[in-house]
């Protein structure tokens, strides 16, 4: 341990650290643009200059290792002056783009301009103009004028995404960020450079100009794109998800997420094909019905079958709470042992970084909470076989488009009763007799267990018909807080959907079983009492970054 002094206070720090790391560990913020804890040190922005006693010149905190007895000043007049100078230098050619820049509101350059610049410009000459609106890859746009040449994106492409296609050309104030000829920034993690970029030089093609950052609320949740379960923030305005961004979790996703998860997982929530309210087949046609009618019908239809004629398919897309309530309903209330779920493995579609071959978020959780055949019951293959030969006549399937799987699609017409939970219209709902419109992952509380065995929270960011943003404790933007009925923006579209655990409990009660759950919390409490893997856990303990379930052998750290 090395003894160092920062701003007059003595600290003991690891001698391997640099000054900026040591300061950060003790909550002292040294301004910086190019330094990033996950990337190599470049030392080119000069913003982190600090005064170190016995050194003739100011030193950059990001590339100076701490040493025994070092005395660092981060607020002295010399340091302030140096910061002023660096800011003035950066702003000379920076365009006055803030009003049209997506980064505004979360821009390091803006923030530091308020904090560390002199507040006016002495530059009367013409600014250097550079190309704008350049498509760097399918998902990322570049505005070269706004680039401050910090090289974070270049280092990310080289070191993390392992696709070294970005580089600088030209010299001096004519430096231009570009891709090598014939290449583009199209790796599966390319969009991480958007948050990485300290300014608005890199923006997302998808999110571009959709909203100002201060108009959205953000909710901590978990990505459902694959079994990794990257930690994310869901950004919502007017009850519509506009973007997802990665949230740091060293055990799971470091500070990153993949482009697929970022772009594709929320499209279903906003989709035109969303179901709103239950559907029931009447004279061959699926028509809208009320919840009570659908629940009563499901219960009375299910009662017509023998235990062994009923099968239940849980879902690796659904939460632990949903799957637990579902298997309890199947096994304890209906008494069938034919319970399983469909795995969605895409062998070969994984990599050594974040992406997993399992394209669902909760395979492990579904297994752990008991979505598996009871003793002597049928597994998924036997269920398909059973439907084919007519021994299974009724199927209850949770949140999964099972009809998209050829083996299952072929046998569905043999069924006498198909009950489905789904948030969107798909092939399965088209084949169903009763469809319950279920909430998506962004509309309910719950937990998912990732491939490591880490139990992580999902939280509602979008309100459904039965919820209220204010009363139910959702994250609220300023717009949400002050909306009234005579504002157009105060009347967002709300889908008539309910979380699967609730629907299942209602059907179970209608069948005559005893299942009383009032909240996801309630369901989880029972899981934590009954299921070994979840012993002693609760939502508070899981918190924002999740905890390992009791059966997980060890954490598999991110590469």
């Amino acid at each position: 341990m090395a003894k160092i002094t920062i701003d007059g206070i003595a600290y003991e720090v690891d001698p391997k650290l640099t000054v900026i790391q040591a300061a950060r560990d003790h909550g002292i913020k040294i301004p910086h643009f190019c330094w990033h804890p996950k990337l190599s040190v470049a030392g080119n922005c000069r913003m982190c200059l600090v005064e170190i006693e016995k050194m003739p010149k100011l030193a950059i905190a990001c590339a100076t290792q701490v040493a025994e007895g070092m005395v660092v000043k981060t607020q002295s007049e010399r340091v302030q002056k140096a910061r002023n100078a660096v800011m003035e230098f950066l702003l000379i050619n920076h365009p006055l783009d803030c009003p049209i820049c997506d980064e505004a509101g979360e821009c390091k350059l803006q923030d530091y301009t308020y904090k560390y610049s002199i507040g006016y410009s002495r530059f009367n000459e013409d600014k250097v103009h550079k190309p704008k609106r350049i498509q760097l890859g399918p998902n990322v746009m570049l505005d070269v004028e706004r680039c401050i040449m910090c090289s974070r994106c270049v280092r990310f492409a080289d070191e993390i995404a392992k696709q070294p296609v970005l580089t600088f050309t030209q010299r001096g104030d004519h430096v231009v960020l570009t891709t090598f000829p014939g290449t583009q920034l199209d790796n599966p993690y390319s969009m991480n450079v958007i948050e990485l970029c300290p300014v608005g030089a890199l923006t997302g093609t998808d999110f571009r100009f959709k909203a100002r950052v201060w108009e959205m609320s953000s909710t901590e949740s978990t990505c459902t794109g694959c079994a990794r379960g990257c930690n994310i923030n869901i950004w919502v305005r007017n009850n519509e998800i506009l973007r997802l961004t990665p949230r740091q979790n060293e055990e799971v996703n470091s500070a990153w997420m993949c482009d697929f998860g970022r772009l594709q997982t929320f499209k279903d929530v906003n989709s035109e094909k969303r179901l709103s309210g239950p559907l029931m087949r009447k004279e061959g046609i699926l028509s809208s019905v009320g919840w009570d009618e659908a629940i009563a019908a499901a219960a009375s239809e299910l009662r017509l079958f023998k235990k062994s004629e009923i099968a239940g398919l849980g879902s690796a897309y659904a939460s632990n709470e949903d799957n637990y309530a579902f298997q309890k309903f199947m096994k304890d209330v209906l008494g069938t042992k034919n319970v399983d779920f469909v795995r969605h493995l895409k062998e070969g579609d994984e990599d050594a970084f974040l992406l997993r071959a399992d394209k669902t978020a909760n395979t492990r959780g579904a297994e752990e909470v008991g979505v598996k055949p009871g003793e002597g019951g049928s597994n998924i293959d036997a269920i398909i076989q059973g439907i084919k030969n007519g021994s299974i006549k009724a199927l209850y399937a949770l949140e999964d488009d099972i009809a998209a799987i050829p083996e299952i699609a072929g046998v569905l017409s043999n069924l006498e009763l198909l009950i489905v939970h789904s948030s969107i219209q798909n092939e399965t709902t088209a084949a169903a007799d009763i469809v319950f419109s279920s909430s998506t992952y962004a509309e309910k509380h719950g937990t998912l267990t990732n491939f490591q065995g880490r139990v992580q929270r999902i939280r509602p960011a979008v309100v459904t018909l039965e919820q209220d943003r204010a009363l139910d404790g959702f994250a609220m933007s300023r717009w949400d807080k002050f909306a009234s009925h005579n504002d157009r923006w105060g009347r967002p579209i709300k889908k008539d959907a309910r979380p699967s655990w609730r629907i299942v409990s209602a059907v179970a009660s209608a069948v005559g079983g005893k299942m009383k759950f009032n909240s996801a919390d309630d369901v989880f409490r029972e899981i934590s009492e009954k299921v070994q893997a979840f012993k002693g856990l609760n939502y508070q303990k899981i918190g924002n970054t999740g905890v390992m379930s009791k059966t997980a052998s060890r954490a598999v750290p991110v590469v």
Partner: protein
Amino acid sequence: MASSKKIIRKKDFSLLQRMYLPEIFRGLMTTFLQMFKPKITHQYPEVRFHPPASFRGRPVLVEEQGVERCVACGLCSRVCPALAIEVQASETDLEKERYPVKFEINMVRCIFCGFCEEVCPEEAIVMSNEYELAFSSQEEAIFGKDKLLIPAEKLKERLEFLKQNR
């Protein structure tokens, strides 16, 4: 209140005051004299009031060569204390990159404070001299781009006023 002394009534009235009638005639005289002064009442709506350039009527969007100056930055929307403005940006091929696909001011919410005009980096939203605002429903009070866009030529007075008083 500082002037509280002045409004305390004197207990002892002067003789003239106690006589009452002279004061009545003095009042009637004032009224009578008004008849010979120039009239300032307008016969609205036949005769209309033309407010000076400093007047803050309903906020409008400045249109130049058929396009709005607005770049949909949303600053007016953010600063508006009454949350009257809703802006939805989108991309345009024009040099300004952004434009508002939707720009709505809820005139029932607007309090005519002029903050939107003050904050706008493009001088794209200004307070006009229009004050005739009557609606038969709240829905009608939400002005879209169709009602908000006004050619710059028609707003000359205000734009000139802003230039001089910046």
